[in-house]
């Protein structure tokens, strides 16, 4: 794929207050803000050429760098990484970046970055190389997201930022934020952290930045910067503890970043940059980065254009019905009301439950209002949109009804039959089942083609994944509508077949089943629970079990056991744990509850952690292979997307299939 080259355009600008001429570099790839400026080799060379021309001049008082509207620059051209096939290549690109960017930091005249818009990765590093920086108060994103993908900010970021703002704050940007769902900061935060020396409002950011630059050039403004020679070791150690908690050593990039920041305390500029080059070269050739880029592409692209969406025009939604008024139902009401801004009616047979359900949703609105997330008028609107009804007649003019009643096929069939008696013929009926058959649920209806599965993850407002289930008779209009609604709800939708437990729960249960089985066989809980640590999953299996609740875990295990008895077991010990009313194997202090331990005692064939890991990964590989054969999803990418968004499985595994592919003996079909 050819590079969309970010050109370094240069114009002379007469600075105000007679401060002389500034050569102003505009970074612009010629596209609008939807295709932000990035740096590949050609882009670097264009900037280098501009700096050559500038270096040849003796008449300049200053050099400035700014971006195109709304965008400063968002870093390296990730598409270019695929073309890097040798370590030499990788090293060359790393060095080229340094060679070009460092000229901005070693210029005989002062250099200024005017950060007018999003500045990430290499984009922010360009700014860091400059002598001074201004930032627009309207900048939505300042970040060094490299560690999120599997790289380090190695075009100067790890060396310059800690010296500019101190190691502690620098590590927040370099390591902590990328590992916290790739958090980004806004212009005012960047200014508060000391990344920028001055901040101006977006309305006339560039003009006021140049005025400020002129005053710096004239000596009317002096930029004071604190020295940062305090305790670097403890700052780095603190960050290392955090990285260990998250990753347990599973991905190399954040550790390399920690080492580089530590090095920045003492290394010379040349040494520091050379160390960055080596780190980049290693990481660029490593599988974690490749998996990270694959995962990034999935969530950036595939999540936004899901596979298998029918071309049919989706039905316009003007009113939504929610059957039930429990916790899940009120979460749905809130989500639908906030996102679709149409009336949402909850129904329940019991006035008290109904009041409680609607009340819970209204209370959440009050919380949002108190936090300043919504304004008073909006709160009034949303509350008025969410009402309760004791009869389903209120669904008569609804276009979309979702049920959130007890997870029992008979109950759900009954509910859908009652709803169908009231609603129009093309009203879409959605079920939030996590394990029941959507096809069977629709079986008794006059219009089974209107039924789809709409499997959310808890908490509904937060989790980004929505598994949309096509039953055997689900029609295109209902499916298209489900995708349109899912998208409006802000979810990433993946089309799945009506197969037991769909994707995320099926894989997590299989995975869990192996770990629990190992414990049943006599493996110590600690050993089994930490056997997967080298993967760097967001939590251990028993922590996950604690989170979802052993009863739910057991229920899904039973469902899957019924469907696939050979591969999914039901642990008697787990059943006993549930019967004992335990919240999990861990006590309130996160140590293993002795009673829980006693419940699992008695196995006679303990495994090593390595063996547990091996069997679990083999089980995952087998299950994925079978799911692909069954056609549960269109291809392996959807499995990975589901695991990333629904289970929080990490980028460095690429979800899971890239990792399984590179593990010997666990090869999956392509």
């Amino acid at each position, binding site marked *: 794929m050819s590079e969309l080259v970010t050109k370094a*355009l*240069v*114009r*002379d*600008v*007469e*600075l*105000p207050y007679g401060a002389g001429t500034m050569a*102003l*570099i*505009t970074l*612009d790839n010629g596209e609008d803000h939807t295709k932000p400026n990035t740096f590949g080799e050609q882009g670097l060379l264009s900037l280098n050429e501009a700096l050559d021309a500038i270096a040849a001049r003796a008449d300049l008082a200053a050099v400035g760098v*700014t971006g195109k*509207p709304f965008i400063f620059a968002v870093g390296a051209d990730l598409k270019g990484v695929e073309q890097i096939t040798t370590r030499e290549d990788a090293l060359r690109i790393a060095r080229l970046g340094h060679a070009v960017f460092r000229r901005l930091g070693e210029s005989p005249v002062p250099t200024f970055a005017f950060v007018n818009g999003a500045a990430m990765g290499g984009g922010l590093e360009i700014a860091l190389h400059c002598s001074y920086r201004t930032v627009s108060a309207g900048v939505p994103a300042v970040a060094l997201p490299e560690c999120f993908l599997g790289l380090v900010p190695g075009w100067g970021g790890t060396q310059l930022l800690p010296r500019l703002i101190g190691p502690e704050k620098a590590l927040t940007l370099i390591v902590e934020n990328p590992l916290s769902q790739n958090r980004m900061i806004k212009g005012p935060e960047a200014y508060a952290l000391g990344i920028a020396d001055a901040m101006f*409002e977006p*309305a*006339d950011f*560039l*003009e006021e930045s*140049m*005025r400020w630059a002129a005053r710096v050039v004239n000596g009317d403004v002096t930029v004071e910067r604190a020295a940062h020679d305090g305790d670097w070791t403890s700052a780095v150690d603190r960050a290392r503890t955090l990285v260990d908690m998250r990753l347990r050593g599973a991905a190399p990039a954040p550790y390399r970043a920690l080492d580089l920041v530590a090095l920045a305390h003492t290394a010379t500029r040349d040494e520091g940059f050379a160390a960055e080059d080596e780190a980049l070269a290693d990481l660029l050739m490593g599988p974690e980065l490749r998996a990270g880029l694959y995962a990034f592409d999935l969530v950036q692209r595939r999540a936004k254009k899901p596979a298998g969406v029918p071309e049919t025009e989706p039905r316009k939604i003007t009113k939504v019905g929610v059957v039930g008024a429990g916790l899940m139902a009120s979460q749905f009401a809130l989500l639908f009301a906030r996102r679709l801004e149409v009336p949402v009616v909850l129904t329940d047979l019991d006035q008290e439950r109904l009041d409680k359900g609607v009340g819970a949703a209204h209370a959440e609105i009050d919380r949002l209002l108190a936090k300043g997330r919504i304004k008073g008028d909006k709160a009034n609107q949303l509350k008025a949109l969410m009402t309760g009804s004791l009869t389903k007649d209120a669904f008569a003019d609804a276009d979309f009804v979702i049920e959130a009643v007890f997870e029992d096929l008979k109950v759900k069939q009954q509910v859908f039959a009652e709803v169908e008696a009231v609603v129009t013929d093309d009203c879409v009926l959605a079920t939030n089942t996590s394990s029941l058959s959507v096809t069977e649920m629709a079986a008794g209806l006059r219009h089974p083609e209107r039924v789809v599965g709409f499997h959310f993850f808890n908490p509904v407002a937060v989790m980004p994944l929505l598994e949309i289930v096509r039953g055997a008779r689900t029609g295109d209009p209902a499916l298209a509508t489900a995708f349109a609604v899912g998208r409006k709800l802000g979810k990433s939708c993946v089309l799945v077949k009506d197969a037991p437990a769909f994707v995320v729960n099926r894989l997590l249960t299989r995975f869990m089943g192996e770990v629990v089985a190992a414990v049943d066989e006599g493996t110590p809980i600690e050993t089994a629970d930490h056997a997967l640590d080298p993967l760097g999953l967001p939590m251990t299996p028993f922590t996950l079990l604690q989170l979802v609740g052993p009863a739910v875990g057991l229920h899904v295990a039973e469902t899957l056991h019924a469907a696939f008895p050979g591969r999914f077991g039901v642990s008697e010990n787990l059943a006993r744990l549930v019967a004992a009313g335990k919240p999990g194997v861990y006590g309130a202090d996160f140590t293993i509850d002795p009673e829980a331990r006693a419940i699992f005692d008695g196995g006679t064939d303990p495994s090593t952690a390595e063996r547990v890991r091996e069997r679990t990964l083999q089980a995952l590989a087998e299950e994925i292979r079978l799911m692909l054969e069954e056609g549960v999803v269109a291809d392996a990418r959807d499995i990975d997307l589901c695991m990333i968004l629904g289970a929080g499985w990490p980028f460095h595994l690429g979800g899971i299939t890239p990792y399984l592919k590179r593990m010997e003996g666990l090869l999956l079909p392509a």
Partner: protein
Amino acid sequence: MSREVVFVDGVRTPFGKSGPKGLYAETRADDLVVRVIRELIRRNPSLPPERVDEVAVAATTQIGDQGLTIGRSAAILAGLPKSVPGYAIDRMCAGAMTAVTNVAGGIAFGAYDVAIAGGVEHMGRHPMGEGVDPNPRFVSERLVDQSALFMGVTAENLHDRYPSITKERADAYAVLSQERAAKAYADGRIQPDLVPMATRSAQGWGLATADEPPRPGTTLDGLAGLKTPFRAHGRVTAGNSSGINDGATGCVVAAADVADELGLSKRMRLVSYAFAGVDPEVMGVGPIPATERALRLAGLSIGDIGLFEINEAFAVQVLAFLEHFGLADDDPRVNAYGGAIAYGHPLASSGVRLMTQLSRQFQEHPEVRYGITTMCVGLGMGGTVIWENLA
């Protein structure tokens, strides 16, 4: 009730030449206004933004980036509190002048304490007459001469009315305007009231810090050979006319007592103003009856006026004014910094440029008590504002 109204401060963007290579080819008109409003607020830190009671912004063509009730939309974009209202004004070339007189009337009546008034015209984005749909009755009932809508032709018509004003006199006046503008720049009279404007182009961002239209070094010989596009062997050329330009202006106008309360500068006091109508086909005579009326309202005579800022839409229209009032073509009191022939004339914005320049000249000439700003207006009008020097 009636309150004294004062001119507090005025600024403008540098003016640009319209067209694809012009300074503001890639710059929005509303952004020009926003920059002016923000600069006025920045330059007058003792004026709390919430004390601005009105934002009146003129534009001749009120569509696209000059549409959407530009006074209000620019106020919001400039970050003024949402409690500050705004509106749009059109009186063609006298738009900004009308913005000032409107808010001044409101202040005198007690409706406002402080207002921002200004104008904008991006003639590159909005050529004169864009989207107009003249009523056919203008022609069928001979309400106006067909030439009335073509400003250059009305200037030729004005030469006909004043046969003594020759092309040579018009060219000589144009040379003087260019010379005076160049001197004003050299003396640093213009720059203090310009606000630098970022400009985008295919070559990247730039910064407009000076007017683009002036042609220092213009000579009579150089002008002599220019085409007369409005009439074969005519007298009106690009050299003795203002150009096609882009730019925005703005000023702060306040009740005198409120200016005192807030510690705002009081540069000039509004004495009187008047607008007058004339035959549209000779719209350039408009300043004459407008000035006569304004003088009458003020109880002054032309001899009381020590400084003149007259918009140079065309040299002939300035010369007609001078001839009428018995002033010499090169009277040093008239357009001492040069005029629109040099700086350009982004239609609705120009009125405030005249006022800002007059206020600077007042500072240089504390001995002068009264000055006027006057301009001709398309469709046959003139507007005049008489000011008292408070410097």
